């Protein structure tokens, strides 16, 4: 790293100059290539290439399997030349030699393991008892159908060629690069959603356009794909210049921000109103599912995001809502079937959920963080077992669940899962209520108590916050909001079975909250859209149904990636961003201060705070109340 001594007076703001562009980093290229090689072999060995080989996305030549295959060397080639940012940030420019030569080296390395794979597949070794996905067809894909030595050459050519493309991408301007990536992403998604596009364009009266763009029940035609790619790349390129950086937006306050958010709100509201009309039943269905998870996630957000109580059993409240609705409304409920109307049953189950919140919340009040997590998880497990049990079969139907749950009567009609559009309107209504309630609570007195609780329970209590009450309030509010999801779910599906309330649901809800942005309503909503809408829920398909088999794998990878790269979530709250980026924030504070305040020479706090950020001080003296009670 470059070293400079800086003038002492303005030293605080100085940063190191960008180092000169380094030469070809062979070691890095080989390392990145090796990772790429493992990745490609892995993707092949778990059967992804073959599974997706039948799924044509760009008519007539590219299948989804090919896209995945080609993406690996491309990304590897790109990464091979990247110069890791120095400790003071800033990405230096890369020389053409570094980018291209590095990419070429990486490309060769990438081809290594797949080549071994091909050799093995062509040999007489029978690996399929161990690796069921290593089928002869795989060799065909990896060699692009070439026989003999030509196969290896084809593989090498693909790897090196695409790596070079990746390397070349590195040489372009960053804004351009982002635009290209965005363009590829959009076109790829468009290619995957032929049926949805067919419905949507049909609803818009643009069926002819669909015919031009797509092949029915297949993918995008190649020429429109190219045109769309160019179009979207150009649009992203232009837009990228206009968009204020996320950081600026985060720090911006005052009327401008308010006006902006008002406009955003209005646009969103209009979209919400019109969207279900246009998008067709698949997307409507998808968004109903997303909406249900939004409700659950908003509920959990109060418990985890606002109050910092790690609840790993949130599905409990969903289950109470759904089973409650089933028992109260279904004529087929085995034990007790008052056959109430949905709206009549709703307040009852919300009250039941509140009671469940108190029941779950009370025993865990005195427990510290992770104990709380396992106990809530335990409650969810207990409840799931009770619903499936023969013991309570006379009330909950055991393994057979409860069926024939009527829909929601709205006026003269009944809304249920067979009509996803109406269901979506209903769901949107409830999500709006939940959002409003969450929003109002967050800024209120109780919201501040939750925030204090999350920061430091003992101190909050010492400052007069009734932590018992605040915790229970959080559980009750979270439970009530989540019970809406259960009630809607029962009416939508028309039947409830115990396996819809497995532990995985709790985990997925938590993941939504955290990946979206803990404690931040728009973040939580976005989290649900991304995870449930695109990938799908535990027992729900998402937009990319093709990836069903690999959904959990992608989930896992995405989670790890997110937590390492962007732990505050996709759309974080200011507070959470501060918490996770205290260091960066301190720099801002430092700059801020420079302009404002000169009276207090040693009140910068920077050192103290940075020290604390990296290693929170252990409670110094004994028994000063730091221990949990």
């Amino acid at each position, binding site marked *: 790293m470059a070293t400079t001594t800086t003038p002492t007076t303005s030293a605080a703001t100085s940063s190191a100059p960008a180092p000169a562009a380094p030469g070809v980093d062979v070691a890095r290229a080989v390392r990145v290539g090796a990772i790429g090689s493992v990745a490609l072999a892995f993707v092949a060995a778990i059967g992804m290439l073959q599974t997706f080989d039948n799924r044509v996305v760009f008519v007539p030549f590219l299948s989804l399997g090919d896209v995945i295959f080609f993406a690996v060397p491309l990304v590897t080639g790109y990464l091979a030349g990247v110069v890791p940012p120095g400790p003071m940030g800033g990405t230096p420019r890369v020389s053409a030699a570094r980018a291209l030569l590095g990419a070429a080296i990486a490309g060769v390395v990438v081809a290594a393991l797949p080549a071994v794979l091909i050799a093995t597949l062509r040999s007489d070794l029978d690996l399929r008892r161990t690796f069921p996905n290593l089928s002869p067809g795989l060799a065909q894909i990896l060699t692009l159908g070439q026989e003999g030595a030509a196969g290896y050459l084809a593989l090498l050519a693909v790897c090196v060629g695409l790596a070079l493309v990746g390397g070349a991408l590195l040489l372009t301007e960053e804004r351009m690069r982002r635009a290209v990536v965005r363009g590829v992403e959009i076109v790829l998604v468009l290619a995957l959603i032929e049926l949805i596009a067919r419905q949507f364009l049909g609803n818009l009266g643009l069926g002819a356009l669909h015919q031009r763009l797509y092949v029915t029940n297949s993918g995008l035609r190649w020429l429109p794909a190219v045109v769309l790619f160019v179009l979207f790349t150009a649009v992203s390129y232009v837009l990228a210049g206009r968009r204020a950086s996320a950081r600026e937006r985060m720090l911006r306050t005052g009327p401008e921000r308010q006006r902006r958010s008002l406009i955003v709100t209005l646009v969103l509201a209009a979209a919400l109103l019109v969207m279900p009309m246009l998008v067709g039943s698949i997307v409507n*269905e998808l968004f109903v599912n997303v909406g249900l998870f939004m409700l659950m996630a908003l509920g959990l957000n109060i418990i985890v995001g606002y109050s910092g109580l790690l609840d790993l059993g949130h599905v409990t409240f969903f289950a109470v809502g759904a089973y409650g609705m089933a028992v109260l409304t279904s004529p087929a409920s085995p034990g007790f079937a008052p056959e109430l109307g949905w709206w009549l049953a709703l307040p009852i189950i919300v009250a039941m959920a509140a009671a469940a919140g108190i029941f779950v919340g009370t025993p865990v009040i005195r427990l510290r963080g992770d104990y709380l997590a396992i106990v809530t998880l335990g409650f969810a497990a207990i409840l799931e077992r009770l619903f499936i049990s023969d013991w309570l079969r006379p009330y909950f139907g055991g393994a057979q669940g409860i069926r024939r749950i009527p829909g929601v009567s709205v006026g003269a009609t009944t809304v249920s899962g067979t009509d996803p559009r109406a269901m979506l309107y209903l769901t949107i209504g409830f999500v709006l209520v939940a959002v409003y309630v969450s929003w109002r609570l967050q800024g209120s007195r109780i919201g501040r108590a939750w925030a204090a609780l999350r920061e430091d329970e003992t101190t909050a209590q010492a400052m007069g916050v009734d932590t018992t009450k605040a915790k229970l309030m959080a559980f009750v509010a979270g439970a009530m909001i989540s019970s809406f999801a259960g009630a809607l*779910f029962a009416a939508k599906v028309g039947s409830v079975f115990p396996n819809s309330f497995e532990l995985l649901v709790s985990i997925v809800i938590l993941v939504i909250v955290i990946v979206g942005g803990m404690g931040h309503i728009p973040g939580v909503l976005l989290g649900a859209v991304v995870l449930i809408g695109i990938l799908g829920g535990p027992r729900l398909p998402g937009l990319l*149904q093709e990836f069903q088999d690999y959904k959990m794998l992608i989930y896992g990878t995405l989670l790890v990636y997110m937590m390492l790269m962007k732990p505050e979530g996709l759309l974080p709250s200011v507070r959470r961003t501060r918490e996770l980026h205290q260091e960066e924030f301190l720099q801002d504070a430092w700059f801020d201060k420079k302009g404002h305040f000169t009276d207090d020479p040693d009140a910068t706090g920077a050192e103290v705070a940075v020290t604390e950020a990296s290693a929170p001080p252990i409670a110094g003296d004994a028994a000063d109340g730091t221990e949990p009670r």
Partner: protein
Amino acid sequence: MRMLRKGVRTAAIVAAASLVLTACGNGDTADLTDDTEADADATGDEETDDPGDDPDEDAAEAGDLGSVTYQEGEAIQIRSLEAISGDVAFLGIPNQRGTEIAIADYGDVQGFAVELGTPLDDLCSADGGQSAAQTIVSDDTVAGVIGTSCSGAGVPASELISSAGMVMVSASNTNPALTQTPFGTEGENFSEGYYRTAHNDLYQGAAVAEFVYEELGLTQMAAIHDGDPYTDGLTTAFQDAFTELGGEVVVYTAVNKGDTDMVPVLTEVAGENPEGIFVPIFPPEVNRVAEQYVNVEGLEDVVMISADGAQVEGFLEIAEAEGFYFSGPSLQFEGNNNEITDKSATDFLEDYQEQYGEAPSAAFWAHAYDATTLLLQAIDNVAEVGDDGSLTIDRAALRDELYSTSFQGLIGQITCDEFGDCGAGEIQIILHEDSSVTDATQIPVVYTFVPSE
């Protein structure tokens, strides 16, 4: 609101018109000639106003469900909706593959290729089945569906598919509610256009009860299910039938999926001294039961009876499985031929091994194969080639055709009754005595049950 809806409808008509025009232009598109089908969503709106789906409605008259038309060069679309991920994938994957092989074997339908599209996943749950079915009914080019794997998913899926005018044939739904009750009336989840080649649980429960009571002469039985609606339904049916015959189920209990330590439940069973245990659960739990029951005092000599869920290589090959009885639909497919594709079960298994590198992991592959040929045959029978070379399938006619199709399949005679039960309904009990025989079709039959009409 009314204005909007009107707008949408106008848009739909414009869309339909443009579709027709473009179709004439390049002859490369799916075309929907019936106006009610022009916009699936718009019509869906009206048709599905009553989700309760009155089951008493008489069979639809031909023509009022619309039709689907394929232009020359297009493929007939059918869909597979099976549990292909998660813990029940072992059941759904062979079903899907059976369907794939059947499509390949059947070949073209009146010169039109048949396409399965992206296989859909019922996730073995009601919500998963509903969402996936929603995808299917949104695509008005789909002629029919093979699925679901799980009865729980089948309930909402059959309702949706039925109200969209489509048909679905399941290979492994066995829950009585989907078709008929023991009294020959509609089951509570019966829907028009739903068929299955799988047997009805009630028959199997009765078959086991009869076999145990009359053939083996046992009167004290235990039953263990695993919380799956299927196994739970089966043990309940068994209990009812056995009690009616005069026997007694002294322990009725359950394990959980994922359990490995079966000693507690077996001790519970042993405490009541049953003469036999009916344990129709799936691997791997059934493996654990087989391995552990011999070590539980008092169970050394009990008669063990399992069901079709366990008739897979992974269970049959373990030594502890020797001596187990299995109930299930007739699996003596050897010599059986699907008369439509002229394929024997043996050939099928060879094909399967060749193509997928393993033997089927569950017993319903033949049901899936027959279900698919059943559907394709019916399509073949009702499809009409128009003057422009397009192929039109009338949905109502397809339903009717399915209700009246009859042929010899891999699993035996396929004849659909008025509630959609098409399978033979014959239940066999086999005795597994040699763990080197891992092909269930090779295991000797000791009892055959034919439901009395």
